[in-house]
């Protein structure tokens, strides 16, 4: 679907959209960005950008956009490791901004999402701020609108369109492979397990690609539902998707493999058919809203269905 059409459709519903508003009286061109917490006029091609979200940071990096301020994050993956360096001002943590540092930077644009969304109100007093949180109940749709907003702000519309179209194609391809097989999403941390279902932060597997949920009753809760190995044995999924939270944050605690290596899990169809899929923790847990993350997520689920 052409990007313009999507924009028009969204604008018509008054929902999230990104459109250019030519302002004749001012020299600097502005765009109005519809985001998770309202509409904000932001300058086109802003020079000083502060980003609080790793997913958005990764996306801007891929689009070749320079940023000025980033949160202090330990254990960034290799391709983002440079942002831990001193040339990028550390403007706080993923959750909590350091307002003085943000203020001192005099940014043209501040971008928050998910973990930092609560700081929106305070940050908006400093500079134009947009909240690019994705909505897990409409993951792909809201993701597309957020990425398109970034494309519009930074004048990367063509590149964004090309990559989003490629994702759409990959989704269709993966969907075609989703047959009657069931999947169960499990996150492990500190030796314990919780299950996630449709509509959750990992719901892309069920909602977008269409893998059947082994247990349709799991609530879409941020922290999942505490489960036992018996639960996995009973659900007996064809594919077990595993996110190792501890390795996502660089901790070498009880690895997911160790937690899941027990007689009950080993008896499931997923284990017998070698379909316990360990999802890349950074992509799925830390930055699921990055352009490359969604590409990788769709690919990973597609591969698991082959």
């Amino acid at each position: 679907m052409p990007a313009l059409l999507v924009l028009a459709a969204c604008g018509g519903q008054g929902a999230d959209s990104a459109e250019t508003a030519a302002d004749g009286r001012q020299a600097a061109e502005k765009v109005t960005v519809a985001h998770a917490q309202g509409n904000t006029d932001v300058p086109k091609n802003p020079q000083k950008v502060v980003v609080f979200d790793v997913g958005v940071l990764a996306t801007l990096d891929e689009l070749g956009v320079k940023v000025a301020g980033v949160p202090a994050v330990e254990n960034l993956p290799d391709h983002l490791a440079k942002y831990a360096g001193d040339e990028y001002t550390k403007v706080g943590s993923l959750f909590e901004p350091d307002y003085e540092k943000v203020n001192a930077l005099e940014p043209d644009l501040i971008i928050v999402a998910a973990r930092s969304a609560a700081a929106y109100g305070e940050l908006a007093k400093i500079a134009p701020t947009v909240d690019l949180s994705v909505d897990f109940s409409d993951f792909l749709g809201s993701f597309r609108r957020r990425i398109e907003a970034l494309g519009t702000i930074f004048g990367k519309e063509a590149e964004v369109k090309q990559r989003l179209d490629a994702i759409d194609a990959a989704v269709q391809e993966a969907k075609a492979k989703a047959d009657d097989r069931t999947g169960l999403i499990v996150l492990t941390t500190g030796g314990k397990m919780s299950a996630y279902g449709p509509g959750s932060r990992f719901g892309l597997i069920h909602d977008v690609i269409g893998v059947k949920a082994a247990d349709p009753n799991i609530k879409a809760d941020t922290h999942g539902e505490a489960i036992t190995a018996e639960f996995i044995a009973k659900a007996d999924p064809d594919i077990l998707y595993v996110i190792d939270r501890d390795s996502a944050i660089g901790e070498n605690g009880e690895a997911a493999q160790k937690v899941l290596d027990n007689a009950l899990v080993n008896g499931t169809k997923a284990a017998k058919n070698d379909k316990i899929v360990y999802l890349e923790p950074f992509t799925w847990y830390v930055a699921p809203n990055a352009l490359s993350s969604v590409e990788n997520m769709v690919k990973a689920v597609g591969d698991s269905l082959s």
Partner: protein
Amino acid sequence: MTRRRSAGRLRAWHLAAGVALLTALAAASLLVGVGDVTPAGLLGGRDEDLHLLVESRLPRLLAVLLAGTAMSVAGLVMMHITGNRFVSPSTAGTTESATLGVLVATLFAGGEAVIVKMALAVACALLGTFVFMTILRRLTFRDMILVPLVGIMFGGVIGAATTFVAYRYDLLQTLGAWTSGDFSAVLRGRYELLWLAGGVTLLGYLYADRFTVAGMGRSFAINLGVRYDRVVNAGLVLASVITAVVVVTVGEIPFVSLIVPNLVTLALGDNLRYALPATALAGAFFVLLCDVAGRLIRFPYEIPVSTVLGVVGSAIFLVLLLRGGRRMGVR
């Protein structure tokens, strides 16, 4: 620890009734879980039922019984050696110290065997408890309420240090995951360390008479020819080891070590020979009841036993304070 009410005596039939009740609950708990285990299937020797029983249900039951027994006995022993009803591993900084030990072990020996983790947890728990005892000896007012308050503050300081370290290393959520007491991860091969806590608990029984005497105060105990310091130290080691083992294997089990010994000594008096087996039974029963409830409330998902214990335990503790406070010498 003066008592104004004559204590009931534990008779053999009390103990027998307790064991019978616990056995019944234990048997019932074997049938509670996500997988299908039925009495008929077990008696008929159905493979799937037996498999689940051996891999999951029986280990979980044993883990609950061992942890419940050990924690309540640790509480009883600490209550005696400090001569204060409200001192338990959770109100003397022992639990928090053990948790700090696990965190340090996770940070610096993450890949090491669990035994290293436990050694560090035991060492930290011991150190923390001894520091608390040192503070206690310097207190002029050894009020029934003041002492545990000091202990809670001390534990708070250690807890704050733990939180700070965890925060610096981005481990807060992980810390939360493994400190909340929870038997959901227990399977065959995942709980066996708890037998160590069980063994130490048995040792406590051998020392019971001496703990009783130590509970009557330093000079009294020395007059009776008991090596007071040695007995107190033995008690501290016992409580610390039990707490550390439980924290490492299943997480913090709140309230049990505080409420169960109090309820039991209210009913039976302070002689540990009687109170110990009753406390062990009651502790096991209490934790098992809460664990089964946690498994049933949101079936097929779980509520951690620590959450259930927190709710039930705080309610009981309030009743204890408000109703029994006068009897226990608290104004």
